[in-house]
Each structure stands twice: as structure tokens, then as C-alpha cells.
């Protein structure tokens, strides 16, 4: 039987004004009918270009320079635009990453789903609408008939992605290309969409290419995985084999660099040094050689062919490894310096370094001619927590749960509507003038986007000197000494000082941002999604560095992330937020092994684990439905609308945080663990009897 998609020796180049990017080089890839094949790689590895080559939708200057693409036996390379157009959306469909920019904002969704049917099938308007209803129902859009006239902005991200899938499926394609279909979505929605894709493949027998950077996503959903690096396929194997017995050092390092929930936070994450090569001038030998610990002269001179002992498992490496990394080495920290730094930052007046008490922050929503306040976004609702010197607290939750707002409240750039935030007994947001300026030294922040957090018009030396200048610390000479020392500490060369931010890679910029944040020796640093904008192979470098700096400077940190594994790796304690509420707080082990709140439990079960055995054994998709609007959060327990155990009491009465152990508290009427008071009462009655 001919495979649904058969790519042989495909090379795609992109012509820029002065150079040529060799985006895809000599790629072979096969997908059988009804099979899902994963294509994994970092950004810039050419994985999206491969998908676009199949559709003939390459960007300006892009063209296929060699090889063949056969869809169901039909050659696609060299087809005219007209013939390609007939295939696109009919036999081959694509799902894009960003559903907001991929849907037409001026057309109702029903019309957009019906469009390919009318174009390709020549269906009448009524037939096309009927078909649209059918596919929208198939992709699980609730009440499709009422939503046909809805515009894309009226739907949530998850529902929009379902509409995108419906458009792709409208003509029953034989091949579906899904380019990062869930990257922009929250984990709970991601699981639902992936399950939908799985289910549709089984029912419709499509061949699916799942393009992603996330090893967890491909682990549970594919039967084969192709790992792409710098435009080449470097390893291809069945999913189970790739995870259990990979042979390419890149695959090995990529997998080891991902923090996992069960990984030991005292060990370092394996990281891949350096950056992917520039594809306008690819290196002569193995493209991974510059970053590979096993590379020798042969690797640098000669490109390894894609071979292997069995045709099922191919890899391109002269010195293949054997399976995953066994034990990662421990984190090395200067213990004496760390202890001294911690001692210096102990609170003098208060019991805890930072105390957040009943904090509320609501953003008004105004409407009408007089801009009267009609409602408010309940960003942070009655949150109480504390932070000790040198401790790291992680905050996790879906987007819109108020974790970033809480971070801004903690560093004092936003003021709470009520409640108090005290650093060492002083409420920073109530200070004024120079008192406020001096107090700001103790509270620093690190931002998510390494491209946006550094002023593009300032040199690195000015960027790093700015905090010292603002705070008027030291003479010009001392300031220069200090920025040089800190730059070395974050692992950047001295010549970086004279450069502008755009000359650095994302990981390097995040190092600069980290250096700036520690420049003032803050007592508390808030890191808002510190690694989510970075590539997988760079993430672990920054995580290792953050962990070491936190310890050596004795800094207390608040790490905000949607990724529970990242938070657990960096933090001593974890707070879980849902719709502005802190629903559970405890040590990493409390949260991971003994979750009491149903939301935490579902979150842990939903996170895709880069392990096909665990992923494929999962039977349920975790949390159903979407996050309710923070404008009108549900009464009582805010999670009740999505909770499997919700009862009438949950709607009527708001649960309070109850203790489950000294360190562990959760707000649930029907917790998964026994609360401390109940346990005590039980043992007391037990004694009576």
C-alpha cells in the first residue's frame, strides 16, 4: 500500500536579500494512513518549513530545491499553483498555531468552516452550512447551531482551536498537518485538543503529522517520532524506542534537559551549551558537533549519514549514545557564601520575610459614555501567603488565574485594593519618595519575554548599571566592577558589555535580565515565567543558573509559571492558583504526591510527561471545559464548574484553606486527603471508643 505521505530527500531553501537559508536539508519522512507521526525540533530547526513545503505555502523567497513529496502516490513537487490549490484544504489540510490570527476576524465561524466545502466540493450554500454544522459537532463545539454566527473573538482560545480543526476537517482530508496545534493553549485545554485529534484520527483514518517542540505532547500521541535539528532529521524511531533507547546525543540531551515532576531538584538539569548553527552558513560536518560533548575531528569534518541497525530506527551520528542519561550530577553551590548571604537577608523585625495578607486586586471594567464602572476583573481575590528568607515559592495556574498580578503586587509596582503586603514588617506600597526608592532595592523582578525586558536602545553595560544609578549605589568605578563581576557570574563574556540586546540569543538575554535583577542584592526576586519564552534546549541552562544564584545570594524568590514541572524544580513550596484564589499551598512533595485539591490533582494528571509509557496509559483528559470568566467567577468554590466532585455545598459555601500538614493547606470541601483537624478528631474519638 502506498503511504499517505511520502517525502524523499526534500530540500527547501529560503532566499533572503543577501543570503540563502538552507531551512530543510535532505529530509525523508513517511506517514501511513491512520498514523500520527511526530516531528520534534527547536525553533529554527526547519520543522514548520517542512510542513509548509508540503502545502506549497512557503514564505517569500522560499522554494523547494530538490527531492519529492508524494501524497497518496501523487507527486506534489513541481505542481502548478492551480493544481496545488485543488489539493490544499481538500486532500491535505493544516492546523496552525495561533488560532486568533489564523481565523478571519470579520467573518462568522460558520461561514469560515463552510468555505472549503463550497470551494472544493462545489456544494450549495445550504449543503455547506449543513456540513459545517456536522464538523463543528464532530470537533466538540458545544451548541454548534447557535454558534454558527459567532465571530472568532467571541470564542475562547480552546474553542477557536476547535474551529480551526473543523475548517481543516471540513473536506475530510487524507493528510492533516498540525503545526504546534496546542502551544498557545493552557495545559488543561491542550489535553482536550490532543485527545480530540487522536479521536478524529481513529474515526476518520487520516495520516497526521504533529509538529511540536514539546516532547511531552508527542510522547502519548504518536507512533513514530522524527527529531529534527538544524534542517536535518537526526533520529527517527518508533515512539517507545526513541524514548527508551535513543542513539543520537541531541535526542538524549533534549530529553534530559526537560524538568519533570518526579525529578530531583537537588540535581542539575542536563543542558545543551551554545546555540543551533546559522543555516545560511551550515557547518561542514555534523550540524550538532559544536554543541555535542562527544564530538571529535571526524564529526567536525564529515556529515554522518542517517543509518542504523534496523530500518525502523535511524540516526545520524558517528558516536551514538545508548539510551537516556542515567544519573544527572548534583548542583554545586558555594555553601559558605550561600549561608553568609542568607544570614544577611534574614528579616529583622517580622517573623516572615514577606507576608501577604488577604490581598485583593480587581481591575475595573468601564463602559458607556460616562465611563462608569460596570464590573471588575477579579484578578487576585483574598490571597494570604508568606515567604521566608532564602525560600523559593512557586505559583502555578492557568493563564488568567491572577499569578502575574500577584507578582506585580508583591514587588510593589501595583497597589492592592485591600489587604496588606509587608516586607520585613513594612508595607512597601504605602511608602513614598526616597523611602520607597530605597525599599525597591529589596524587591526585584525578572520578566517572561527576554526580547521585551531589555531596552533595545541601551548597551548591556548601561542596562546593568541602571539599577545602581537609580539607587545611587557606589562610585562609577565600583559600579563597573560590580557589573563585571555579575556578568561573569551569569556566564557571559566581558565583551557583552558593549553590545546591544538584539545581538544576544534569547537565553543570553535572559541571563542579562537575571544579572540585572540580582544587581541590587534583593531580598525577594519575583520571576514571571522566566523560561517559557525560551527554547527547550536553552531552558535548562537558565533554570540551572537561576537555582544557583538563588542559593548563592540567599535570595527568596517567587517563581510564577504555568509549568508545574519548572516550578517544582525551582521551588521549596508551591502555591496553586485558580481564578484569583489560592486553592492549595504546600511543599513540592505535598503538591505532587499528596494533592488535596481536585484542581491540583487534575493539573498534575493533565501535564504531558515526556514518557510514552505513562502518557499512553492515561485514559482521561483531566479537566473538562474552559476557565470561567474572571468577571463573574462562580459562587462558592470557583472551581466547582469543572470539578468532578462538586455538590450543592460547593456553590453555596466558599471553602476556606484547611491544614493537611504543617506545610500543606488547601481550600476544598471534599478534599482528596484527610484534613489535619478531621484526622485529629478521628484519632480522639478512636481513643474514646
Amino acid at each position: 500500500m502506498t503511504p499517505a505521505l511520502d517525502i524523499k530527500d526534500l530540500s527547501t531553501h529560503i532566499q533572503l536579500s543577501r543570503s540563502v537559508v538552507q531551512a530543510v536539508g535532505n529530509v525523508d519522512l513517511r506517514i501511513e494512513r491512520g498514523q500520527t507521526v511526530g516531528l520534534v525540533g527547536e525553533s529554527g530547526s526547519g520543522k514548520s518549513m517542512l510542513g509548509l513545503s508540503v502545502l506549497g505555502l512557503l514564505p517569500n523567497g522560499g522554494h523547494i530545491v530538490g527531492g519529492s513529496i508524494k501524497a497518496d502516490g501523487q507527486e506534489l513537487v513541481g505542481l502548478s499553483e492551480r493544481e496545488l490549490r485543488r489539493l490544499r484544504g481538500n486532500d491535505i489540510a493544516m492546523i496552525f498555531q495561533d488560532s486568533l490570527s489564523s481565523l478571519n476576524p470579520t467573518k462568522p465561524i460558520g461561514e469560515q468552516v463552510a468555505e472549503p466545502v463550497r470551494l472544493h466540493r462545489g456544494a450549495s450554500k445550504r449543503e455547506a452550512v449543513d456540513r459545517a454544522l456536522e464538523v463543528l459537532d464532530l470537533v466538540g463545539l458545544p451548541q454548534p447551531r447557535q454558534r454558527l454566527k459567532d465571530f472568532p473573538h467571541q470564542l475562547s482560545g480552546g474553542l477557536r482551536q476547535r474551529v480551526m480543526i473543523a475548517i481543516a476537517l471540513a473536506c475530510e482530508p487524507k493528510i492533516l498537518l498540525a503545526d504546534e496545534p496546542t502551544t498557545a493553549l493552557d495545559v488543561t485545554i491542550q489535553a482536550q485538543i490532543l485527545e480530540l485529534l487522536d479521536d478524529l484520527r481513529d474515526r476518520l483514518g487520516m495520516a497526521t503529522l504533529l509538529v511540536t517542540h514539546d516532547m511531552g505532547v508527542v510522547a502519548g500521541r504518536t507512533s513514530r517520532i522524527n527529531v529534527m535539528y538544524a534542517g536535518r532529521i537526526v533520529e527517527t524511531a518508533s515512539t517507545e524506542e526513541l524514548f527508551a533507547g535513543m542513539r543520537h546525543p541531541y535526542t538524549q540531551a533534549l530529553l534530559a534537559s526537560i524538568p519533570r515532576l518526579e525529578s530531583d531538584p537537588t540535581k542539575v538539569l542536563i543542558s545543551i551549551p551554545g546555540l543551533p548553527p546559522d543555516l545560511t552558513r551550515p557547518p561542514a560536518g555534523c550540524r550538532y558537533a559544536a554543541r555535542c560533548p562527544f564530538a571529535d575531528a571526524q564529526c567536525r569534518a564529515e556529515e554522518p549519514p542517517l543509518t542504523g541497525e534496523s530500518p525502523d530506527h535511524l540516526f545520524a551520528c558517528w558516536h551514538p549514545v545508548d539510551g537516556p542519561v542515567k544519573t544527572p550530577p548534583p548542583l554545586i553551590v558555594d555553601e559558605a557564601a550561600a549561608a553568609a548571604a542568607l544570614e544577611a537577608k534574614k528579616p529583622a523585625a517580622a517573623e516572615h520575610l514577606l507576608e501577604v495578607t488577604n490581598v485583593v486586586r480587581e481591575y475595573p471594567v468601564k463602559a458607556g459614555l460616562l465611563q462608569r464602572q460596570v464590573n471588575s476583573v477579579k484578578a487576585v481575590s483574598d490571597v494570604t501567603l508568606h515567604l521566608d528568607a532564602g525560600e523559593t515559592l512557586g505559583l502555578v495556574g492557568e493563564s488568567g488565574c491572577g499569578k502575574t498580578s500577584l507578582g506585580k503586587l508583591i514587588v510593589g509596582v501595583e497597589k492592592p485594593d485591600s489587604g496588606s503586603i509587608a516586607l520585613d514588617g513594612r508595607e512597601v506600597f504605602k511608602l513614598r519618595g526616597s523611602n520607597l526608592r530605597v525599599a525597591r532595592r529589596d524587591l526585584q523582578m525578572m520578566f517572561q519575554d527576554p526580547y521585551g525586558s531589555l531596552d533595545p536602545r541601551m548597551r548591556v553595560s548601561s542596562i546593568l548599571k541602571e539599577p545602581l544609578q537609580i539607587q545611587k549605589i557606589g562610585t562609577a568605578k565600583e559600579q563597573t566592577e560590580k557589573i563585571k563581576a555579575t556578568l561573569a557570574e551569569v556566564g557571559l563574556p566581558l565583551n557583552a558589555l558593549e553590545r546591544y540586546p538584539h545581538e544576544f540569543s534569547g537565553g543570553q538575554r535572559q541571563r542579562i535580565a537575571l544579572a540585572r535583577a540580582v544587581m541590587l542584592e534583593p531580598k525577594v526576586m519575583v520571576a514571571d515565567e522566566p523560561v517559557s519564552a525560551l527554547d527547550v534546549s536553552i531552558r535548562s541552562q537558565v533554570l540551572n543558573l537561576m537555582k544557583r544564584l538563588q542559593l548563592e545570594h540567599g535570595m527568596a524568590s517567587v517563581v510564577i509559571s504555568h509549568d508545574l514541572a519548572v516550578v517544582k524544580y525551582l521551588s521549596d513550596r508551591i502555591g496553586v492558583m485558580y481564578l484569583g484564589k489560592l486553592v492549595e499551598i504546600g511543599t513540592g512533595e505535598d503538591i505532587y504526591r499528596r494533592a488535596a485539591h481536585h484542581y491540583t490533582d487534575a493539573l498534575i494528571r493533565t501535564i504531558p510527561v515526556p514518557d510514552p509509557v505513562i502518557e499512553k496509559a492515561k485514559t482521561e483528559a483531566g479537566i473538562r471545559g474552559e476557565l470561567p470568566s474572571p468577571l463573574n467567577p462562580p459562587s462558592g468554590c470557583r472551581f466547582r464548574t469543572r470539578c468532578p466532585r462538586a455538590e450543592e455545598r460547593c456553590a453555596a459555601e466558599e471553602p476556606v484553606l484547611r491544614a493537611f500538614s504543617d506545610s500543606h493547606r488547601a481550600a476544598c470541601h471534599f478534599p482528596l486527603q484527610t484534613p489535619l483537624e478531621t484526622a485529629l478528631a478521628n484519632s480522639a474519638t478512636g481513643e474514646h471508643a
Partner: protein
Amino acid sequence: MTDPAAEALVSGFAHADAGQLAPNGLPEGPAEPGTPDGGEVSVVTSGWRLSLREFMSNRLAVIGVAVLVFFILFSFAGPIVDPTNQSLANPALSDNPPTGTHIFGYNDQGFDEVGAMMRGGQTSFEIGALAAAMAIVVGTLYGAVSGLAGGIVDTIMMRIVDVGLSLPYLLVILVLATKFNSNVLEIAGILAAFSWLVPARLVRGEVLTLRERDFVWAARVMGARQSRLVFKHLIPNALSVTIVNVTFLIADSILALAYLGFLGFGLSYPQTSWGDMLANALQYLNSGYWWLVYPVGACLVIVVLAFNLVGDGLRDALDVRLRRR
């Protein structure tokens, strides 16, 4: 002005050099000894150089620059190279037609027309540049402050701009022009009094997006004052907007000066502008004295067009979204 705590903070680090730092904790050392674990920094073409390259590939904009260079040389170096009588009226030469050495003839005062065009060009460039400079400084500051302040302050400041923009520009300038004695500085001031409104609006729009960027938040977290935000972060980052706008402002000011001169409210004698010359020539239009009208008119059109071409080129070159890769 340092406090003791701050000094202690610095001295703890002043002596730490790179060699004494803790090991980096990476499992495998960096690929080569001495390589920092953040990796080397590769030299990338700077943003300004990319912009220059983009600008140079825009043929019309380069022609615009060449035209401007020519006219600036013509106006300022021309009188030195080719001195002509521009102060003593000579009725014998009044309105004489072009000759081989005086290619555009003489005007009604008997002055050489080319020499007069040079003098008119001087005032055009001087007033255009001066008015644009004043307008851009005021407009940028006003827009940046308004955008950063936000809320009611922003509303009031922007409504003032709206009022300014709805005034009948030319009429007010004419009224103002009668009250002053019409030298270069004052005319430039009058023109600037109106032309700062547009850059103020543009810069405010830019600042509205800039102030929510993370690097501005980072500066706030460090305790930066508003003035530091404006001068160190907001204005430098709004620079591409202002640079583009300056060229358009100069073109507009030169045109406005021509209107003023044409209506007789321009510079006072002996200074002259292209507008004055056109107004003078008007009465001889029916006498067929073409050399008094077309050369000056062409100068005006070409210079204004050149400024607009340069402005368009700059906008394409500086706006990353419009830049070709």
C-alpha cells in the same frame, strides 16, 4: 551621595573577580576552556546599520537626499561661488530676460534671479529646520509626558492638542505674523507653535505601547523616577517616529513659509523667501516674465518633494515591520 548600607553592598562585590566565582555546576564543562557557559556573543549587524542599508536600497529616497544636498549647497555655498548684487536696486536691469551668464534673468529690482533664489533657499532651509527642531522637541516631550501620565492628565493634554489642530492654521498664523517683526527666528517660532501638535500625538501613541513594555516595568521596579523613564527609555525608543516626522515637518514648514510670503506676511526686506518671490512675480505673470515664476516654483516643489521622499524612505527603513529581510 551614598548611604552606608549601599556602600557595604558594593564593597562585598568590588573585589570578587571572575576567577574566584563558584563553579558553574554544569555536568560537562563548556565545549572549550575559557568559554563562558552563556556562550560567546556573535557580532550582529547593528540595527542602525540595517536601517541604513535598507534606506540606501530605496532609490527614490537616495535621490531625495542627493537633491537636498544639491539645494543646500546651492543656497549656502552658491552666493560664495557666484556672488551677485542683491542689495543695490538697479532699475536699468529691471525685469531683464535671461542671458548666457544670468540664466534666469533679473527681477523687478534688477537683482539677479538665481542669486535671489539662493537667498530664498537659505531662509527656507533655516526656517524649515528651526521650526521643525522646535516642534519636534516640544512635541516629543509633550507627547511622552502625556502618554506616560495617562488618565485625566493625558485626556486634558490631548484635548488641548485637538483644539490646536482644529484651529484654522493659516488664518491664525497670518494674525500672529502681523504682530511680530518677521525675522527668521520669529517666523520659525510661529510655525513651530502649530506644527508640534502632530508629533505630540504620534509620540504619545508610541509611548502608550512602550510604557507597558517589560523594560519600562523593569525600570519602575528598580525605583526609577518618571523623568528617567521619559528621557532614558521612552524618548530614545520613540526616536524612529520622531526622526521620520522631522523630515515631514521641515517640508511642511517650508511650504507654510511660502504661503506666508505669498500672502505678504513673510520675512521683511532685505530678507526674502521663495514665497515672497512668487508673490512679486504674480503681477508680471501676464507680461510673460516666465523666469520670475517657474524656476522658483520648481525649487519649492522639488525641495518639498525631496523631503517627503526622504521621510518615506526613513519610515520604511526604521520600521522593523516594513523592513525586507
